[in-house]
């Protein structure tokens, strides 16, 4: 850690009194470093330790989670919407590339530090906690795996990367951790492919697919970074916010900013499995069941949402539209695939993609806090659903096809109840966790469309509404097919409830699925918003981009902090900032309120519709799903085959790459090298050098090496060879020497 000169002052509002003191950095640093230490120990000593050292990373993770949660609680009790700690601001920064800051190049001024605000505090605690649970769960689940210790080391590294990512204050480190996460995801998905006894090749392909697909996004993210770097010469989030604010104030939004923001967003598209890079997530279920499911459902995919939230301030209106549309489209697109799936885990995977689409769309329409809110609630009920599906699969002797299930309600009551509760939550039934977050997202989308009055901005809202109905439908289809009706196979007949190690976590998660949402929106202290806004949404609130344009002059002088940029609150708190803004706020508030009420009603209606339809199809048997499918014909097949995206990519991208690389290889062999060989052959014909020459050279070399060892004594005698051609050389040498002496005064 080398001290850096303070970068330009962050906003006073953020800096004064809103920190936890410099000692906090040591604790914050410990949060990612503990898993790192665990990883190192595990890598070097894991096999030799008792129990293959699983307790090492797990206990380290426990400590790390404890610190993260305690820190989060401390932040919570600050109750400050503008809470912000930046280690670069406080003099702790790491000159990463060059330690000599006197070089007048932007890259030499680059420093890396910690950024800790409400958003990262919350996410840090959540990630640390979930990761700890995953560690704990793996102790039991992975028992007996042939690469037990390696699994734990990969898990620790993954956690380290994710925690580091949350704390990064700059794009470079963000990207570094982002990619390390990709690596770990690759290793974890492919874990079974390296099994010492029964390597599973499908896992290898799935891991390769996951890594390559997300890497397409990563490369785009890098290009996005480069776009902003080329113009602003900075890569710290705050530097980017400030520079963007200044630039927008002076020039308005420009095309390259849209381009850069969309490129960065494509990184999130890859990581959060958004259309069109969604194909890897269903296959990623090849990883060890609950663990990889939880990582890919709760933590890693949330990184994409986090990224979108972080770069939201760099997004021009066009870029926001793209984000919103991609998210909304993904939500409905993946949901429709969920309707036709029969593999219980694949259905849940597509459901994850769909829900991630919600979060991304929420950020696109300006609801950063709504999107992140959905991250939490989704993490809870999706974890419950995944564990529940694990329990079902376990109970049905590793049967994953829902057509082979049925009637499990009575055989697995706990699993049934908890999964039902989670399904209600994901469907957006009032009073369950998902309702609040989904409602907030829909409200935000509707509000955006009402404010802008443009048809294109209405699209996300309608798409999301339809997606909500579809979600309710396919989730209840899952429940009905699995738990209701008659058992349709031997496995289902002989199903049994899972042991308590699996049901207890289910019950805990189910409990939160019911009350979790309520908890997050209750405002026990009424401290932040006077009780009108959920505290979570008040603390992690939506940044307001429009104010950048409206108060350009203020921006140019003194704004710069994240907090200040974020300080628009939905309840109208920032209204002292300027007349225009104040007037706008009241109006805005009315719109928000109207939108909220309408969205709530819509959301309830569509959820009910979806559930009722599902009942008609699968519970009461009013319609026969098979006949409907047959009636739909081609459309059904299209959806059933996931819109043929795997096939499409295989036929275009992969096939194209292979063909193109084969073609280039041919060119290399025949044209580029061919030209060289042609020249060579011409020379060969010209000079007739053939095997004889090679032999002469190679053998000559051997001889030379051999002879040179004893050459010295014979050298003089050798001159007298009797070969006139050597004499010619000597003559020539003598002539040169003589000429040198005479003409050039060489000696």
């Amino acid at each position, binding site marked *: 850690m080398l001290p850096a000169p303070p970068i330009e002052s962050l906003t006073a509002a953020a800096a004064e009194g809103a920190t936890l003191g410099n000692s906090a950095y040591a604790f914050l640093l410990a949060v990612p470093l503990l898993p790192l230490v665990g990883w190192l120990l595990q890598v070097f000593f894991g096999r030799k330790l008792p129990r293959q050292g699983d307790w090492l990373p797990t206990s380290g993770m426990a400590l790390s989670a404890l610190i993260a949660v305690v820190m989060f609680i401390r932040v919570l009790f600050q109750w400050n919407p503008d809470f912000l700690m930046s280690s670069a601001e406080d003099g702790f920064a790491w000159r*990463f*590339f*060059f330690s*000599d800051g006197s*070089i007048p*190049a*932007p*890259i*030499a001024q680059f420093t890396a530090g910690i950024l800790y605000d409400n958003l990262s505090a919350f996410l840090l605690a959540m990630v640390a906690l979930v990761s700890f649970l995953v560690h704990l769960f793996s102790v039991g689940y992975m028992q007996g795996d042939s690469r037990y210790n390696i699994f734990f080391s990969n898990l620790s590294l993954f956690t380290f990367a994710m925690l580091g990512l949350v704390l990064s204050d700059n794009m*470079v480190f963000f*990207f*570094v*951790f982002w*990619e*390390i996460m990709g690596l770990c995801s*690759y*290793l974890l998905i*492919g874990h079974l*492919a*390296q099994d*010492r006894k029964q*390597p599973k*090749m499908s896992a*290898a*392909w799935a891991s*390769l697919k996951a*890594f*390559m697909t997300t*890497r*397409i996004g990563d*490369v*785009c993210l*890098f*290009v996005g*970074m*480069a*776009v902003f*770097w*080329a113009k602003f010469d900075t890569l710290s989030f705050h530097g980017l916010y400030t520079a963007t604010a200044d630039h927008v104030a002076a020039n308005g939004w420009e095309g390259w900013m849209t381009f850069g923001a969309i490129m960065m967003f494509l990184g999130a598209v890859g990581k959060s499995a958004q259309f069109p890079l969604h194909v890897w997530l269903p296959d990623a279920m090849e990883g060890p069941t609950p663990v990889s499911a939880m990582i890919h459902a709760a933590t890693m995919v949330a990184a994409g949402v986090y990224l979108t939230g972080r770069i939201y301030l760099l997004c021009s209106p066009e870029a926001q539209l793209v984000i919103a549309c991609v998210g909304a489209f993904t939500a409905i697109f993946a949901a429709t695939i969920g309707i036709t799936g029969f593999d219980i885990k694949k259905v849940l995977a597509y459901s994850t993609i769909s829900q991630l689409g919600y979060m991304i769309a929420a950020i696109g329409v300006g609801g950063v806090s709504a999107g992140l809110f959905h991250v939490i609630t989704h993490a809870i009920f999706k974890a419950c659903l995944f564990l529940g599906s694990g329990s079902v699969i376990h109970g049905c002797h590793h049967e994953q096809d829902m057509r082979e299930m049925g009637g499990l309600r009575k055989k697995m009551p706990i699993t049934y109840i908890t999964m039902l509760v989670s399904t209600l939550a994901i469907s957006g039934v009032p009073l369950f966790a998902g309702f609040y977050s989904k409602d907030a997202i829909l409200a935000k989308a509707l509000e955006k469309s009402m404010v802008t009055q443009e048809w294109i901005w209405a699209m996300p809202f309608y798409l999301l509404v339809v997606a909500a109905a579809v979600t309710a439908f396919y989730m209840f289809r899952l429940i009905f097919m699995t738990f209701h009706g008659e058992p349709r196979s031997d496995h289902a007949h002989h199903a049994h409830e899972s042991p308590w190690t699996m049901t207890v976590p289910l019950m805990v998660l189910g409990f939160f699925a019911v009350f979790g949402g309520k908890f997050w929106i209750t405002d026990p202290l009424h401290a932040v918003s006077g009780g009108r806004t959920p505290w979570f949404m008040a603390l992690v609130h939506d940044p307001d981009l429009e104010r950048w344009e409206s108060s350009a002059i203020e921006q140019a002088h003194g704004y710069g902090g994240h907090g200040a940029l974020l300080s628009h609150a939905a309840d109208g708190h920032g209204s002292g900032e300027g007349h225009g803004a104040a007037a706008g706020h009241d109006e805005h508030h009315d719109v928000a309120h109207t939108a909220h009420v309408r969205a709530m009603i819509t959301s309830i209606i569509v959820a009910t519709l979806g559930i009722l339809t599902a009942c008609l199809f699968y519970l009461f048997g009013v319609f026969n799903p098979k006949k409907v499918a047959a009636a739909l014909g081609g459309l059904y097949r299209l959806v059933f085959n996931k819109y043929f995206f795997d096939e499409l990519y295989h036929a275009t991208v992969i096939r194209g*790459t*292979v063909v*193109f*690389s*084969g073609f*280039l*290889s041919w060119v*290399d062999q025949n044209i*580029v090298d061919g030209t*060289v060989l042609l020249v*060579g052959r011409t020379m060969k014909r010209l000079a007739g050098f053939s095997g004889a*020459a*090679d032999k002469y*050279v*190679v053998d000559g070399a*051997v001889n030379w*090496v*051999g002879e*040179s060892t004893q050459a010295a004594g014979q050298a003089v005698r050798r001159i007298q060879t009797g070969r006139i051609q050597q004499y010619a050389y000597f003559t020539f040498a003598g002539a040169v020497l003589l000429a*040198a002496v005479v003409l050039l*005064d060489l000696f």
Partner: protein
Amino acid sequence: MDSLPYLSLITFLPLLGMAVILALPKSQENAIRWTAALFSGLSLLFATVVYFGPFDATAGVQLVERFDWIPAFNIQYFMGVDGLSLPLVFLSALIHFIAVFASWNIKKSMKGYFALLLLLEVGVNGVFLALDFFLFYVFWEIMLLPMYFLIGIWGGPRREYAAIKFFLYTLAGSVLMLVALVAIYLKSGGIAGEPTFDLLTLKSMASTWVQDQSTFLGMKFTTWIFWFLFVGFAIKIPVFPFHTWLPDAHVEAPTPISVILAGILLKLGAYGMLRINFPLAPDAFADARYFLAVLGTVSIVYGAYVAMAQTDFKRVVAYSSVSHMGYFLLGAASLTFAGLNGATFQLFTHGTSSAMLFLIVGVVYDRAHHRDLNDFGGLAQRMPFFLGVATIGIFAGLGLPGMSGFISEAMTLLGAYEVYPVLVIISTLGILMTAAFLLYALQRVFLGSLPKKYENFTDMDRREAFCLVPFAALCILLGIVPTLVLDKMAHAIQLLSEELSAYTGG
């Protein structure tokens, strides 16, 4: 002399070792091996001492050793080190040292082999340290001969073909360089009265002869020497379309020689560009910049795509070298501080990562005696430790963040984006393809079911681990603390970029 002649020691200790080896009887195999290890180790030791000791990153050329060698032609023995050459010298000493251990099992006339290996090190170290153009050229030629024999005698089945191809290509490059050398020498005589080979003096003269508007066959003097030198060095890098000697040479060369070839020999061309080609013809360089960047981009993408189609593991790695060295050209052509630093750092990082990849191929080849990727599978079950190291190597090769390759590629691309955004976006295709073919190779070698014939495979032994681990450690260490190298280079590169940027204004 107030301190040890470090640079001469680094350069000529291996020569002493070669003499000792030649004096040893052929039957003393162990003595020969350990002598080679000792002398290359001593060279490495001195390189390390210089790296962390007397070298001052803020000063320019230092530790100078200079006296007249051939006064009649004003040729000097002029050695010196600066930020540009220091990391490469260290890398060279390290790679040769490791290569000695990687060669431990060479059987065929091993005395000659180790003697040639040490001679090669003399040439390579000398090229990096020489500051007299003539001396540079002499070392350059010293280096070619051992390489030719090492491929031609100890190589694979088509070794003669590969060796001749290597030799003719590099000979062509040398001839072009020689022409430029003479031309520059004569030109300097016209300016300073007495012609000189001193690179520092020549560099300062560059501003004079760019004024010379007279043309020869339609091109200016600087344009001529720029292209002559450029083609000469580009063959060595190698840049598309001069790269076809590389895969053949790699495939036929024994493992340690591939390691040296990819690890350090390719860097000579790049170093020559930075040291001689660009500074001596700065205006021609400024004119040709865009073209060079395009060549770099083509190399990146083309190398990656061609590598994808190969089934020979070593060919895959060889083409990945073509791809990776493209970054150097792209970064250097961008002329931004970040781009130049990234390009130069890329030389170092590619030295470590490609050396590792070739060692990995070697470990597999020593057991299976073939390199056909489609014929492998499931080695993970027999070689778990090797799998771990190979994973590090492969991820270092594809530039995973947290490893040194990422730092250099990121800096190169960030720097280049300011100047050539479109090219950078195209070259990111190369990043993707590199990841694809390396991981695909990893998958085909290690994963899946284990064929019967490989059941008796053993994991890496200590010697192989000793060769691989230092590189793995370097890759990770420099990925986390890149300042270890970047700080040493920063001032030299800053100077270079200022000098060169002066000509790009118009």
